């Protein structure tokens, strides 16, 4: 089962790299914000997988909570700033 978690983590890592392509090259700031939001959601799942791989899930689940909160706050702050100013 640990091997299964490891392969799923590798698949999610490849998807994160593909999303990073959109985050780097995507036209405009809005595409980049969407890509960063998607990458943050995938990172939460990868952190939960890593907790089960290292057998330290009671430690990693708190990091997952904090990462989900920070991802939401960062995306919302960037969106509200763009709504007010129009550009970065």
């Amino acid at each position, binding site marked *: 089962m640990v091997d299964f978690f490891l392969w799923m983590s590798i698949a999610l890592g490849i998807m994160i790299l593909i999303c990073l392509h959109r985050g780097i090259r995507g036209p405009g700031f809005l595409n980049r914000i969407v890509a960063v939001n998607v990458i943050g959601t995938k990172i939460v*799942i990868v952190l939960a997988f890593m907790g089960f791989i290292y057998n330290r899930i009671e430690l990693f689940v708190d990091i997952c*909570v904090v990462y989900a909160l920070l991802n939401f706050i960062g995306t919302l702050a960037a*969106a509200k700033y763009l709504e007010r100013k129009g550009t970065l």
Partner: protein
Amino acid sequence: MIDEVAAAAMILIGVFLFASGTLGLIRLPDFYCRMHATGKCDTLGALFALLGLAVYNGWNLVSLKIVFIVAFIFIANPTATHAIGRAALLNRVRPWMKEGGPAEHGAPNRGREK
């Protein structure tokens, strides 16, 4: 045994949804279309993957925290997507139109104070 099979099936469904969301983020032509793909697929993929992990873990405090993360993502991710879409609409980002379609009809034309 049956727990592991159920957990593996739910995690596979979640990773498939993540893959479809990534494909939409890369291949779709417009900002709104990309947000349409990622906003739903990421929320449901996170739901299935984390609930699969909770089923694999069993009944304890860690599973309760994982379910809390699922509930938080289920509230927060559509809110963030809606905020980004509202910012794009108020900054007059034109949606992608088909050739020969109603070019002026669906364009957002709202003022910034409304």
